[in-house]
């Protein structure tokens, strides 16, 4: 470190300069892409968010007009905020918890583990459009397979997609069904937990539950944090499944934030308002991530690394 500082004060050495140029040359596609597809759009979307713009006439500066419209006049804003938080708060912890339990189940000695793992993983890689179509059929109130089975045992049919109170829980259920990717990640991290820790715990008289609580959970907590973060970021932006399955309905009960944003931009052609919505979402995602990492010190165990 001191050596680097010393050489930097007298400029870079010949090798250092050569390596700098080489390094920049190798990553240059990303730098150019970063400027074109990230920096410029980021700056201009901030600008558009302060204008009225319908793609036809030139943008008109309206200051914070879009933001005040969103918070005070947009009739659907608070509804989509509620829907999105509902979806995020339930689907992410639920699917992470389910994935972690399933991974633990698969991590014990099991005949045919790779078959079970495959079956659980596959739903997460099937095209979202297929997922939407098949659940449309499964959850239909009249002839859906799930209601068909309920009726066969003389239970009442459940209006999964036609009742405003059930549309969001149905989406959460489908998100949990597609948790296989997380299962595989957890399974790999479980296999990295050292056996000696379990042996030591057993010697100290810990039962299976105590071993899970005091060895498995802390050792996997960094991976849990990582998946929680990714899960939150992705769920806040969830678009395809609600768009295809319920199209936001019934009675806007599953209208998610990104659906509303898409409609604002491409159906109502309010590019300025849409940009303001996007920036608000960005701020929420960053805030969520920061809070998650700040509070993680209390429950995430980093071994000897910290």
């Amino acid at each position, binding site marked *: 470190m001191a050596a680097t500082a010393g050489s*930097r004060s007298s400029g870079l050495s010949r090798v250092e300069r050569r*390596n700098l140029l*080489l390094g920049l*040359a*190798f*990553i240059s*596609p*990303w730098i150019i*892409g*970063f400027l074109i*597809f*990230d920096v410029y*759009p980021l700056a*201009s*979307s901030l600008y*558009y968010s302060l204008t009225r713009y319908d*793609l036809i006439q030139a943008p008109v500066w309206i200051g914070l007009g879009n933001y005040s419209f969103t918070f005070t006049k947009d009739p659907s804003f608070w509804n989509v905020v509620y829907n999105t938080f509902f979806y995020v708060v339930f689907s992410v912890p639920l699917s992470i918890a389910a994935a972690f339990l399933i991974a633990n*189940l698969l991590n014990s000695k*099991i005949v045919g583990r790779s078959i*079970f793992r*495959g*079956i659980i*993983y*596959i*739903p997460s*890689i*099937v*095209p*979202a*459009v297929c997922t939407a*179509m*098949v659940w449309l*059929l*499964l959850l239909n109130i009249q*002839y859906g397979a799930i*209601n*068909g*089975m309920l009726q*066969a045992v003389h239970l009442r049919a459940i209006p999964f997609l036609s009742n405003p109170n059930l549309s969001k829980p149905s989406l959460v259920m489908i998100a949990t*069904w597609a948790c*296989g*990717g997380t299962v*595989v*990640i957890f399974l790999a*991290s479980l296999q990295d937990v050292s056996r000696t820790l379990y042996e030591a715990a057993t010697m100290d008289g810990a039962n299976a539950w105590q071993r899970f609580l005091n060895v498995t959970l802390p050792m996997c907590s960094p*991976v849990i944090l*990582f*998946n929680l973060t990714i899960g939150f*970021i992705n769920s806040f932006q969830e678009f*395809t499944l609600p768009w*295809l399955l319920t199209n936001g309905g019934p009675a806007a009960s599953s209208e998610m934030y*990104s659906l509303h944003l898409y409609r604002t*931009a491409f159906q109502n052609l309010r*590019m300025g308002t*849409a940009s303001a919505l*996007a920036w608000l*979402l*960005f701020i929420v*995602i*960053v805030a969520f991530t920061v809070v998650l990492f700040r509070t993680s010190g209390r429950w995430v165990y980093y071994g000897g690394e910290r």
Partner: protein
Amino acid sequence: MTATAKTARDLTTAAAVRRSKATHIITEVAKYVVLLLLSASFFFPLFYMFVSAIKNDSQVYTVPPILFPNPAHWQNFYNAWTTTFNFTQMAINSIFRYCLPVTLATVIVCTLVGYGFARIKWVGRDFLFYLCMGTMMMPWQVTMVPLFIIYRTLKWTNSYLPLVVPSLFGVPYFIFLLRQFMMTIPEELSDAARIDGANELGILIRIILPLMTPALTVVALFRWLGAWNDYLGPLIYLNRADLYPLALGVNQLRVAQMSNGNQVNTFPYLMAVSTIIALPILLLFFFAQRTFIEGISLTGIKG
């Protein structure tokens, strides 16, 4: 006195062993029961998608649901594929206009960028790497409007350019993946080649690349999958049915079938087309299961 105590202890130990054996068997059985129920519920939706694809209308609307339709209507696959829309054209769009170019671009460019981040030491490298990772936190909605306006000005809408061109500049997620993998290759290999006078591009091609096959397969697989499954990108930029990729085509079929009340065989046809577009993914998974599993583990752990 001590002898009786000893036998008593032996007896209790034997009982404890017997008891723990019994609990062991019970937990083992319970484990498999839970696993079987779980995998049945994970498997059922896709199984039902397939069996509904070979039903006719009266079979698909029957309550309780039919699990093994007899007779099976295999011609649904052909009819669904050809009757309303030209799904062959959409398959060509998906494969040759979207998945293939995007996968090739991603593999080549992300390898180069990953090399720059992993195998050369330079001032400011780590800062730029974290910046690159940071862009993954940016929601697509933030850049959606300006990018749409750019592509519209360039007259790129209703073409695959907006979907393909960004991949020519690297995808942070895959840059990360390849960089992580390259970090695990011993530095001595590169040093030896440098002493022999090889340049960096030569080292990448002759020394690093041959060791990268597993990671490159993972990237190619996931990138292909991402494009195959992508719905939002084509939805924003394409609005002519002859340009649609398969994912959009399926929903187009639903719209057409349901526009004036349900047409004949709406659900069987939808399930048939869904089965056909899910099938390549399932086959890919069966043939490359290990690559999938290793790849996804690689992405999750070293974060």
